[in-house]
C-alpha cells in the first residue's frame, strides 16, 4: 500500500470553516488541506459534524464563516464550478431503484455533461470492471446492496472528477464487500482521483493516507494513521479514536 504524505499540490484547502444552525455550531472553525491524489479519511462520531462539513465542501450548503477552496474554486462564491469538478456519493443509497443499471449510468453521466459517445463507450468498460456486464439491463432495486454500492461509486467517478466525496459509503455491508469496495477506491486513487471519505469503521481509517478526527465540530487530530497511533501510543485506530472521544 502506498502512503503519500508529502503532497505538494493541495486540492482542498479549508480555513476556519464554520457552520452554525441557529445557536448550535455544527462545524467549528476547522482548518485543513487535502493533497492531490490523497485518500483522506474524515472521521468522527455521529453528530460530530462530518456530514455538515462535507456538504459545505460539496457546495450543498453555505458556510456561516471561514473559507474553503475545492479544486481551486471558492465553495461560497463558485459552488457551481465546485459541483462540476467533484463526484458525490451520499450516505443514503443514491441511485434510482426503478431505473436499469445502464440507465442510471447514462443519466448521471449526462448530468455531468459527458457526451453520448463517451458514455456509450465507457459504460461497457465500467460494467466490466465492476463485474456487472450481465446485469446491464437489471433494475437497480434487484441488485444486492454490495453491488449497488460498487455501482454508485462507479457512477460517482464516471465523469472523472478531480475529487470524489464519499459519505459513509460502506454502511451496512459485510467485511468482504467492504474490502472489495476499498480496492476500488485504491484503483481510482491510483488513477489520480482524490478521495475524501467519511467512515465509522476504524479498520477503514487504516486504509487512508491521512485521517482527521472530528469531535464536537472541531478537528482534534489530523495525521497519517501510523503517526496518530504513535502519538497516542495506541495499537490501532480504534484506540486512537476512543482516546480522543473520551477527552470531551
Amino acid at each position, binding site marked *: 500500500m502506498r502512503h503519500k504524505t508529502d503532497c505538494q499540490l493541495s486540492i482542498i484547502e479549508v480555513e476556519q470553516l464554520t457552520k452554525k444552525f441557529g445557536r448550535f455550531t455544527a462545524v467549528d472553525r476547522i482548518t485543513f488541506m487535502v493533497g492531490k491524489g490523497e485518500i483522506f479519511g474524515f472521521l468522527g462520531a455521529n453528530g460530530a459534524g462530518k456530514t455538515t462539513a462535507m456538504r459545505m465542501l460539496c457546495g450543498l450548503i453555505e458556510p456561516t464563516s471561514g473559507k474553503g477552496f475545492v479544486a481551486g474554486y471558492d465553495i461560497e462564491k463558485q459552488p457551481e464550478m465546485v459541483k462540476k469538478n467533484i463526484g458525490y456519493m451520499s450516505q443514503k443509497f443514491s441511485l434510482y431503484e426503478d431505473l436499469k443499471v445502464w440507465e442510471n449510468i447514462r443519466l448521471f453521466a*449526462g448530468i455531468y455533461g459527458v457526451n453520448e459517445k463517451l458514455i456509450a463507450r465507457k459504460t461497457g468498460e465500467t460494467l466490466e470492471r465492476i463485474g456487472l456486464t450481465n446485469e446491464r439491463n437489471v433494475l437497480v432495486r434487484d441488485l444486492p446492496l454490495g453491488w449497488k454500492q460498487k455501482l454508485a461509486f462507479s457512477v460517482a467517478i464516471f465523469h472523472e472528477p478531480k475529487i470524489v466525496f464519499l459519505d459513509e459509503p460502506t454502511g451496512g455491508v459485510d467485511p468482504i464487500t467492504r474490502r472489495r469496495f476499498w480496492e476500488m477506491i485504491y484503483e481510482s486513487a491510483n488513477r489520480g482521483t482524490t478521495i475524501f471519505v467519511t467512515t465509522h469503521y476504524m479498520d477503514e481509517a487504516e486504509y487512508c493516507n491521512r485521517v482527521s478526527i472530528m469531535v464536537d465540530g472541531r478537528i482534534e487530530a489530523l495525521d497519517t494513521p501510523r503517526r496518530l497511533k504513535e502519538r497516542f501510543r495506541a495499537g490501532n485506530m480504534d484506540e486512537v479514536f476512543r482516546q480522543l472521544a473520551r477527552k470531551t
Partner: protein
Amino acid sequence: MIPHAKMLNSQCSILTAFVQKEFYHIFRDIRTVLVIIGIPVFQILIIGFAISTNVKDVKVAVFDPSNDEATNRIINRLNASEYFNVALRLNTISDAEREFKKGKTGLIVIFGENFGENLYHTGDAAVQLLVDASDPNHGQTVASYATGVISDYQRELLRETDIPVRINSEVRMLYNPEMRSAYNFVPGLMGLVFMLICAMMTSVAIVREKETGTMEVLLASPVKPVYIVISKLVPYFIISWFIFILILLLSVFVLDVPVTGSLLWLNVFTLLFIVVGLSLGLLISTIVKTQVAAILASGMGLIMPVMILSGYVFPIESMPPVLQWISGLVPARWFNEGAKKLIIEGAPVRSVLKEMSILLGMAVLILTVSLRNIKARLE
C-alpha cells in the same frame, strides 16, 4: 456564440434525459399507472352507469277523482304504451308523496275534478304530471313521453268532435328542481382528477427523491435546481393533458355529454387549472419531507376541499355564506364553474373571464411562493 449554443444544447439534453427518467418512474410503477389512468376512467364509467336514458315500464300511479270516460281512456293509453305501466290508483292526493318515497313509482298522474265534464263542456281540463327527477335525464324523458300520450289523445278527440278541446298538462319535476344532471359531475370530476395527478402525484414524486437521497446527489451535481423541478412537472403536465382528452372523449362517446363550447378555449382553461395544480404540488413538496406527509397534505389540504367545497358534490349556492367564502379559495371551484359553462352550456370564452383570471392569479401566486421556497431550501 457557439459555446453558448453548445451549453444551451447540453442543458436541453439534460432536461430531456430527466423528463424521460420521470416517465420511467411513472410507467414502471403499476400503482401509479392505475391511479393516473384507472381513477378517471372508472369514475366516468360510474357516472355513465348512473345515467339511464332508457325509459321502459315506468311505474305509474294515478289519482283520478273524476273517474270518467276521458280519464279512463287516457289511463288505458298510458298503460298500453311500452313505456308505462299503470300500477296503482291513489285514494288521496297526499298519498302521492309517499308513493314516490317508496322509490318504485316514476310518474304520478293527477287528474282534476270533473275532468271529462270540463273537457267536453268548457273544452278545458287540467292534468298534473309529477315526475321523479332525481335522475334528470330519465325524468325529462318520462315527462315528454307522458305529455306525448296525452296530446295524442287530445288530437284524437279533436278529430272525433268538433269542439276545440284543450288538456292542460302541467309537469312538475320533483326532487331535483334545478335539473342538475349527471353531466354536471364531469367538470367536477376533472377538477378532482387533476388535483390528484398534478398536486398529489407531483409532490410525492419530488419528495420521494428527498427521501431516497437521490435529491442530495442531484443537488451536489451541476444541474440547476430549477431544471430538476421543471423535469418533475413536465411529465405530469403532459399526462394531465392526455387524461383531460381521455375524459372528454369518454364524456362525449360514453355519457353523451353535449360538448358544445369552443374546444380551444376549453383546452386553454383546463391547462391553466393544471398549472395551478402543479404549482400546488410543488408548494407542498417544498414544505414536507416525507412521501406520507405529502400524501396527507395534498389529501387533506387539496382533495378533501375539492370534494366538499368545489361544487362537485354539494352545490355551492346552498352552502352557508362562510363556506361559500371559503370555497372561493379552492381553485377547483373556479375550474368547476368555468368548465360547466364551457362544456355543458357552450358559453363563449368571455363568460369565463372571471374564472380564468382568478385561476391565473392563483397560478402566479402559488408558483412564485413555491419557487422562492425552493431557492431557500435547495441551494
